């Protein structure tokens, strides 16, 4: 039993009032939520007739419940659209359709491509790797960012889904402190030259910890 009945019972005088009120308020919490039984409701009712403090607690619980319930009816948040991208990125917003597309791709490929049938580094991936390495030198002030990219292909060499990109960032080239960064790319240009925002965005990537995920999606899609 989670409730303790005080030896003084309800509505007692002197020092017993606090524990009695505490016990009744726990009942009132159940009553507000329609989770109390008849006996519990009767106990509370007897106490409430002589306790203004507990009546105010009940009013408070009922009114706050109404306020919070209204919050839930309103969707529970000021922002109702899916926002795409890490908050420190500049990748803009993503609609429900984009997230659904990503989820659908993930289901079809199976757990983010962990068990992919054919994985090989394509010519496209190699090109991206070279470009990324030069980018790492470019952002030397923030450490060296090294990207590797793998593209899943079918038997004919045709890319399946978005390329998978992993990155490690050496925070201080003088030490061996490395930070693994996960980059989830819903879309990656076939060649970096196709999308001038890609490189610009990559330069702005400043994941704060190895738990951060950085998302990219071009503005024009």
């Amino acid at each position, binding site marked *: 039993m*989670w409730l303790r009945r005080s030896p003084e019972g309800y509505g007692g005088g002197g020092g017993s009032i606090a524990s009695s009120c505490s016990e009744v308020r726990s009942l009132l*919490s159940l009553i507000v939520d329609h989770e109390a039984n008849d006996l519990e409701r009767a106990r509370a009712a007897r106490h409430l007739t002589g306790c203004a403090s507990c009546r105010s*607690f009940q009013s408070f619980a009922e009114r*706050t419940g*109404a306020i*919070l319930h209204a919050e*839930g009816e*309103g969707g*529970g948040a*000021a922002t109702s659209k899916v926002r795409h991208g890490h908050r420190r990125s500049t990748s803009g917003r993503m609609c429900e359709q984009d997230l659904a597309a990503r989820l659908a791709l993930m289901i079809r490929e199976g757990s983010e491509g962990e068990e992919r049938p054919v994985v090989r580094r394509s010519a496209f991936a190699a090109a991206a790797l070279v470009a990324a390495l030069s980018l790492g030198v470019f952002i030397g002030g923030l450490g060296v960012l090294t990207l590797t990219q793998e593209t899943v292909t079918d038997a004919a060499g045709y890319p399946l889904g978005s390329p998978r990109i992993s990155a490690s960032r050496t925070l201080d080239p003088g030490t061996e402190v490395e930070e693994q960064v996960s980059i989830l790319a819903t879309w990656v240009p076939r060649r970096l030259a196709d999308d001038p925002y890609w490189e610009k965005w990559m330069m702005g990537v400043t994941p704060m910890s190895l738990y951060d995920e950085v998302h990219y999606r071009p503005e024009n899609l």
Partner: protein
Amino acid sequence: MEQPSARLIRRAARGEERALETLVRMYWGPIQGYLARMVSDEADAEDLAQEVFVRMARGLPDFAARSKFTTWLFQIAKNQGIDFLRRHEVERVPLERVPAGSIAADRPEYGVEETELLWFCIATLDVDLRSALILRDVHGFSYKEIAEIVDATLSTVKWRIYQARAQVHARYLEGSGAGRSILES
């Protein structure tokens, strides 16, 4: 809270984009709202909500409908929120980080100050108490469903909701002087 049809879940589990989009549209608001109240940051909540839907998609093929879909989804969200708070070691937040409620403008019968003070009091609660109160009062889950979501006994849920209300009540009275707005209404 509205439940998706079994057919919709089956279609989503097969990776049908339209079905997944429907699920995202149905539950993005509640999940993001719940997480925003849990972590007290809307941007973090949006990131976490995306991760919740990613995990939902991963788990859909194995979802056996042993529980309600919404209970399962909120269970994922709760775990994401708790993990986030543990990583960032933030369980108590200052007032300015509490996301502004959206209801004050829509529901003029509830004052802005009253609503903000209420949310401030809730934000200072221990995360377990806060989570239970939000699941009950904001999202309308039953005690039994909350017990399933937070993986606790029914008695624990009753105690947490009562404790949450008692602490919010006390802090509200401190914060509002006499607690005029709520108590006199």
